[in-house]
């Protein structure tokens, strides 16, 4: 039970490349913090600096108020679950879980009690005498967690613990981890590249890119009020649509037409030239499924539906559009940064499952400009944050 304070943490490797650059995060006692970002963003390095497996180039790391920069991992009293579990293959499940206790020279009786308790919590009772090689992926994962929870560590650290499981098991384990953390109430730092895990597990989420902390906020705030283009594009699936936009006279001009914009948003973006508008797929709707008279006709446009994906509870429709080269380059750069690929400039809209739009057909769509964000295309900053 402890707080973890990171103050201006920098990690530079031998070639001078900063893998983690000036990151400051305070993790409250009992908080569940997620570090998320595309691969190579420094999230794992940061976690390994907390646990002491990587040296800190500069900055201060405080655990429970005590500076731990120069402490060896064994003196920090943290427990960690590795991505590949790192179980001891020559020991039984029982001995694997008991390992930290034996190192701490606890009495045989105490070890037995604690191991039994951990194995009960994680439903491992029937596997205690087996070797890790004979266990399934999910069971190994639970053994790794057992080894972490068996001793009273100050905090839990998880390094992409679910990335080696199949999709179904991942969902179950995710819930299990959340439940365990709530039950034990221990400060937890969790590294993942999976945004579902990030959004569902965390009290707060830290989004990183190339070693720099982009935004530290609750999942809801990240989704609704992203501070820049990167966070906006990284969080959410399917991702936010980015369209070239200009704001003039309280109206925003998009490739599909000109729509009225709320006054406060317009005031902040008026006359700034070419901007990047960000709007999530669910902020569009097929006009035909909206009740008569509830449609604001000034905010509708005709679109040609290229491809449609029906998922049962909703459906996605794809609307290709032409964009000028400068905008296309920017969108490509953005996709590359968040580990995805954009092949063409297209709009993804999420429609009500009842909508009868068909592929290769025209439809009238409603766009909710109230929820739109406008970004400065050069700096990437969100000009309408908080509105």
């Amino acid at each position, binding site marked *: 039970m402890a707080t973890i304070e990171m103050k201006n943490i920098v990690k530079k490797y031998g070639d001078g490349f900063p893998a983690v650059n000036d990151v400051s995060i305070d993790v409250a006692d009992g908080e569940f913090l997620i570090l998320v970002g595309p691969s190579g963003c420094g999230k794992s390095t940061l976690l390994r600096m907390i646990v002491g497996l990587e040296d800190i180039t500069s900055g201060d790391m405080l655990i429970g108020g005590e500076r731990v920069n120069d402490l060896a991992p064994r003196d920090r009293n943290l427990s960690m679950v590795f991505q590949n*579990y790192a179980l*001891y293959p020559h020991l039984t499940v029982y001995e694997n879980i008991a390992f930290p206790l034996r190192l*701490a020279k606890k009495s045989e009786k105490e070890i037995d009690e604690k191991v039994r308790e951990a194995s009960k919590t994680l439903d491992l009772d029937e596997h205690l005498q087996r070797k*890790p090689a004979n266990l399934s992926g999910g069971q190994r994962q639970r053994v790794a967690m057992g080894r972490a929870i068996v001793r009273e560590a100050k905090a839990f650290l998880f390094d992409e613990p679910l990335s080696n499981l199949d999709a179904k098991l991942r969902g179950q384990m995710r819930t299990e981890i959340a439940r365990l953390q709530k039950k034990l109430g221990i400060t937890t730092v969790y590294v993942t590249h999976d945004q579902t895990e990030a959004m569902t597990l965390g009290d707060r989420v830290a989004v990183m890119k190339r070693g720099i902390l982009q935004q530290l906020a609750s999942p809801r705030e990240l989704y609704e009020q992203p501070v820049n283009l990167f966070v906006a594009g990284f969080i959410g699936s399917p991702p936010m649509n980015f369209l070239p936009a200009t704001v003039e006279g309280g109206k925003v001009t998009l490739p599909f037409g000109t729509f009225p914009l709320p006054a406060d948003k317009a005031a902040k973006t008026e006359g700034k030239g070419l901007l990047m508008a960000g709007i999530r797929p669910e902020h569009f709707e097929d006009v035909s499924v909206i009740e008569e008279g509830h449609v604001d006709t000034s905010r509708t446009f005709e679109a040609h539906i290229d491809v449609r994906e029906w998922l049962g509870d909703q459906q996605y429709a794809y609307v290709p559009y032409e964009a000028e080269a400068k905008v296309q380059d920017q969108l490509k750069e953005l996709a590359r940064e968040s580990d995805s690929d954009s092949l063409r400039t297209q709009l993804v809209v999420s429609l009500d499952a009842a909508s009868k739009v068909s592929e290769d057909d025209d439809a009238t769509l409603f766009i909710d400009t109230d929820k739109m964000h406008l970004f400065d295309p050069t700096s990437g900053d969100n000009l309408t944050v908080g509105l």
Partner: protein
Amino acid sequence: MKTDVKSRIGTAIGCALILIWCLLPVAWIISLSFKSQEAVTVGSPGFFPSKGGGAGWQNYQDVLADDQFRRAIFNSIGISLIATLLSVILATLAAYAIARLEFSGKKFVLTTALVIAMFPVVSLVGPLFDMWRTFGIYDTWPGLIIPYMSFTLPLAIWTLSAFFREIPWEMEQAAQVDGATSWQAFRKVIVPLAAPGVFTAAILTFFFAWNDFVFGISLTSTENARPIPAALSFFVGADPFNRPASLLAAGAVVATVPIVVLVLFFQRKIVAGLTAGAVKG
């Protein structure tokens, strides 16, 4: 199906041929060791002793009753075991450092080790003979243990560092996070995982020491430190012109037994895939 049967028969014949090729000399020496001295002298070409030519266990009893031979066995076992033990301990530590640490001169250490292993034994015997006499360790156990170690260490280091490289880094890191010192992580996690490698290195080292003849005969002068291979060559009996072939055969069989026992014992420890299950593959 037809080719399957054919290939199986072929395999069986091939195996049988190789087995005969390898084991015939061994079988012959065992056969020889059960014949009486007289039968060998007059010429007894059969595989099984001819009528009245069998000696039963007499040759073995004679060999084991011989003080010189008993002493040689004791020397061989003692020297080989100590050389193996020291060599494996040193090689384990060295190989761990080579596999895990980045230090300047790592390549140099590895290549030097290889060069030493390739050095012809004979070229070193002369200088060693002179040096050992100056140091006063000529005809002593350490006088043999040291060259055995220096010739087996390189191979042991190469074998073991390959094993250590196979062990994921996370194993040690997990142990350290769990509260282990570097030494504890090495002893409780890494060494058990490298056990197959340790035993492989041990067998190789033991073979070298046990089978060595050149050092054994050149660096010893009395039964004080003379190992079996050298002792057998001195085993001429009463008449130097009429070597006791069947006694020598019995001695050779006795000298082979410890190696067979050792291999059978260590073979169980060399289980491949001990690291299976450590990490998600």
